[in-house]
């Protein structure tokens, strides 16, 4: 008793993607199981770990499959599972982590980008050390405006698969350390503004700093889907469109 609840509390407080399965019918009514996407001693398949018991191995297996699907879809689901000729109803409740867009560079593109991101339900954080860019006037619509060096600000945050990081400063002194820091974490999306030529230079700098090619490949650059646009609003739209594309095609975390 309380072990399962404590595990649920911990997963939710850590804002971790997880599913809570509850049996709604049959002898097992009220039984519960927490399903997380992590390796643990009680593995139920690739990358799933569970806490608690539904009282029946076949039921737990079926529940874990549905839980994995619900986590992938990021939506709660009501399902039935047939076990030994009995049909049992399950609720698969899903805790979806808050998605956050971290924008490094309080530049013009960042203004419409914050608007679009908020419309899509993302928490928005704008970081820039330069006081003339990072004004409350320009970013009153952002959830957070942080006036400091990007790398310092990033160190204060949790960068997980629900965190999307874009660097837009046009200043490698600001962008590159932020990128190096983000690449060292499992951020769900990392994009860097700049032409192909700028990016080629950046890649050389990153390699010199000891970042592996595999990590460098995670950077979306030139940033955004190619919509053929040039204005700040159109570029912001192409960036947010790319983030939406990436999050919808999301692969199994840790796979």
């Amino acid at each position, binding site marked *: 008793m309380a072990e399962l609840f404590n595990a649920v509390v911990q997963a939710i407080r850590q804002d971790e993607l997880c599913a*809570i399965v509850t049996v709604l019918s049959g002898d097992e009514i009220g039984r519960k199981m927490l399903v997380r996407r992590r390796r643990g001693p009680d593995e139920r398949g690739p990358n799933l770990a569970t806490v608690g018991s539904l009282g029946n191995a076949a039921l737990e297996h079926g529940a874990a499959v549905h839980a994995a699907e619900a986590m992938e879809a990021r939506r709660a689901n009501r399902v039935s599972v047939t076990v030994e000729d009995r049909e049992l109803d399950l*609720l698969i*409740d899903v805790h979806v982590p808050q998605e956050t867009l971290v924008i490094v560079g309080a530049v013009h593109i960042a203004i419409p980008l914050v608007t679009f991101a908020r419309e899509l339900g993302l928490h928005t954080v704008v970081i820039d050390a330069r006081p003339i860019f990072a004004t409350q006037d320009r970013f009153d619509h952002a959830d957070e405006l942080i006036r400091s060096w990007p790398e310092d600000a990033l160190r204060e945050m949790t960068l997980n698969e629900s965190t999307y990081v874009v660097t837009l400063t046009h200043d490698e002194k600001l962008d590159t350390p932020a990128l190096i820091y983000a690449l060292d974490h499992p951020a769900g999306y990392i994009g860097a503004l700049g032409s192909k030529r700028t990016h080629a230079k950046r890649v050389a700098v990153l390699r010199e700093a000891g970042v592996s090619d595999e990590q460098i490949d995670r950077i979306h650059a030139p940033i955004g889907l190619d919509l053929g646009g040039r204005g700040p609003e159109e570029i912001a739209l192409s960036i947010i469109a790319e983030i939406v594309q990436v999050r919808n095609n999301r692969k199994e975390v840790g796979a």
Partner: protein
Amino acid sequence: MKEILADIENWQQAGKQVALATVVEVYGSAPRPLGAKLAVSEDGAMVGSVSGGCVESATLQEALEVLSSGKPRLVSYGIADETAWEVGLACGGTIEVFIEPLDW
């Protein structure tokens, strides 16, 4: 779930029993989605919601009974229900709520 955790923990630390009500089925339009939660302490305090306020008091009564019996139950609310006059949903939808003692 996140927004009701602090209250649940406070109740538990004070040694109170807690029941949890969760929306487990939604037919038609309903104010709160699948998975929406209401927690009830043994002395009748509530946190969270399973509807826009239409069925909370009925759910509270059920939750207190669940706490005294120790057995979970599934309750349905909606216009098709015979108790519609008392606890019907204004939006015309039907919801099913699972009420359980938080003893896990």
